[in-house]
């Protein structure tokens, strides 16, 4: 036993540091979530300092639970995260399979594909919302304008004119509106994170056994069946990894939401917490604990689903 003591002693600083690193913030959050703690209250100045005297029990949780905006934020979080996961996994698999062969310019294509991942989230959001999605100045506005002009031109054309005069004028979509800002966030994050999925799937595809595919060819499996029964199960684990990592990252999206609409309509949980923190630390902490629980549920649920459907 004695010879185990020294390694244990040597490990201790790291373990203790890690414990503090995680435990201190978590227990502070837990503590704040059970007391009344606000930054600013003229009538009840005693609430402005964190103290056990202000114990509120589950009051903060109850307060948050009864807010409609809390449930909207949860809905929005789930919508955004699941859409992004769905899109990145599908696009990632498709692109990885497409470029998993040799063709001239392969190296450049791969570098280009990976590059969105190196753009900072805030920059990504600013670029998308102003230069691409803007209804007037962005690519979207220009494209919609162009299409409208072409149609207008075709209306006076001899044969097809009658057909095109039935077409309506297209309206560009404003992605800063309450109803649409979540889609803008989904688009820009998908664009940014698809490379991550492609990268992971590509490495996995390269380790796929070619002889299995030859055997499948002889067994009468066409390309689709080979993909369905060999490649997709082979990608099961990497897909689970991509889903897991992205779920963790995207549950805490903030910059994109701030830049697109300042949380107008499409607050997600972190943004909602951010707003509460402006004054009500207790309620914000309670929401934080809800977020932790939600993250765990989402992770477990998604992993199960991916595992079941792919591994047969």
């Amino acid at each position, binding site marked *: 036993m004695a010879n185990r003591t020294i390694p244990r002693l040597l490990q201790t600083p790291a373990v203790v540091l890690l414990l503090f690193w995680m435990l201190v913030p978590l227990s502070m959050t837990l503590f704040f979530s059970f007391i009344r703690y606000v930054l600013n209250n003229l009538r009840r100045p005693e609430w402005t300092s964190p103290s056990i005297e202000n114990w509120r029990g589950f009051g903060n949780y109850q307060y948050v639970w009864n807010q409609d905006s809390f449930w909207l934020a949860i809905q929005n979080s789930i919508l955004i995260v699941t859409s992004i996961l769905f899109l990145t996994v599908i696009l990632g698999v498709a692109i990885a399979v497409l470029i998993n062969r040799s063709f001239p310019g392969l190296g450049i294509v791969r570098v280009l594909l990976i590059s969105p991942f190196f753009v900072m989230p805030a920059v990504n959001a600013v670029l998308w919302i102003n230069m691409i999605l803007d209804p007037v100045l962005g690519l979207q506005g220009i494209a919609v304008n162009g299409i409208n002009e072409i149609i207008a031109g075709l209306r006076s054309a001899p044969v097809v004119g009658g057909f095109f005069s039935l077409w309506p004028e297209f309206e560009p979509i404003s992605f800063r509106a309450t109803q649409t800002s979540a889609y803008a966030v989904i688009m820009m994050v998908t664009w940014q994170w698809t490379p991550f999925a492609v990268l992971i799937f590509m490495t996995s595809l390269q380790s796929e*056994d070619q002889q*299995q595919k*030859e*055997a499948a060819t002889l*067994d009468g*499996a066409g390309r689709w*069946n080979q993909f369905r029964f060999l490649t997709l199960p082979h990608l099961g684990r990497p897909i689970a990894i991509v889903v897991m990592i992205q779920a963790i990252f995207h549950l805490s999206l903030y910059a994109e939401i701030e830049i697109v609409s300042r949380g107008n309509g499409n607050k997600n949980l972190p943004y909602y917490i951010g707003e509460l923190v402006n004054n009500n630390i207790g309620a914000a902490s309670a929401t934080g604990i809800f977020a932790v629980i939600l993250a765990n549920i989402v992770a477990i649920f998604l992993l199960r689903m991916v595992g079941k459907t792919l591994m047969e």
Partner: protein
Amino acid sequence: MGRIVLEKVTKKFGEVEVIPPLDLTIEDGEFAVFVGPSGCGKSTLLRLIAGLEEVTSGEVKIDDATVTEVPPSKRGLAMVFQSYALYPHMTVRKNIAFPLRMEKMPQSEIDAKVDMAAKSLNLTDYLDRKPGQLSGGQRQRVAIGRAIVRQPEAFLFDEPLSNLDAALRVGMRLEISELHQRLETTMIYVTHDQVEAMTMADKIVVLQAGVIEQVGSPLELYERPQNRFVAGFIGSPKMNLIEGEAAKKRGAQTMGMRPEHIAVSTEAGEFKGTVGVAEHLGSDTFLHVHIDGIEEHVTVRQRGNVNFKYGDTVYLTPEEANVHKFGADGLRID
């Protein structure tokens, strides 16, 4: 039916011609074995027949129908790979059922066929396991099961036993031979194992650098090798090939003697030499004899146990009727 004919088949990888024009016929129901040194094109030839590689020129025919342009899945052949190539995410049952499922056969029929194949290969207890949970021999049997459910025109085996240990190899060798007797389907079998080739084959095809050196039954190849290469390649231990004075005396460039066709004496004989290593196998003893003026040692087979040991002087005399003679071009002289 499964008569396979190759007509003037060639294969190039880029500029390298791996198979120069080659003709070969494998009769229906025959067990043909391809042997040859590593890199001589055995696998390539098999893959050309299977359709996994396209021929550069020439034609492949199965039952008189040209299949050169036919995709692999439509050729009606089944292949067993050296690495088994089982589908790792499927159970044994699904692995075996896979080709039938691809044919869109009704499920009840699939189940019946899979059960029958599993029974004949002793796999019934493992049907619900994944390949990763099986031993090497069991995996090999699953691969064979996957091949037989389709009732193919012919089976192609590419060194199927080389990943197994020696004892298992003997067992599987017998199983495959039995399978061939039972199914009476054409089989083409690639190996570099002498014993597998000699014991299993109806017909052995000896290849060197993509060229067929000789085709024939195992005994034909053993008793009448057509050239030096086949003589040295077929048989274990190898035939003793001697050049120089002794060969010239018999009107040949090279003379060959099988180890069992050499008489040993302690008093007199054609060659005088000293015993190097004596390998006692119980039933036989192999003497490695060093003869002056001959670079490689000569191997001699003696029945039972003989009392020669390192350094003993012995005299060797070949049985004249069984001496193989080869000319300067390497071809047999009769």
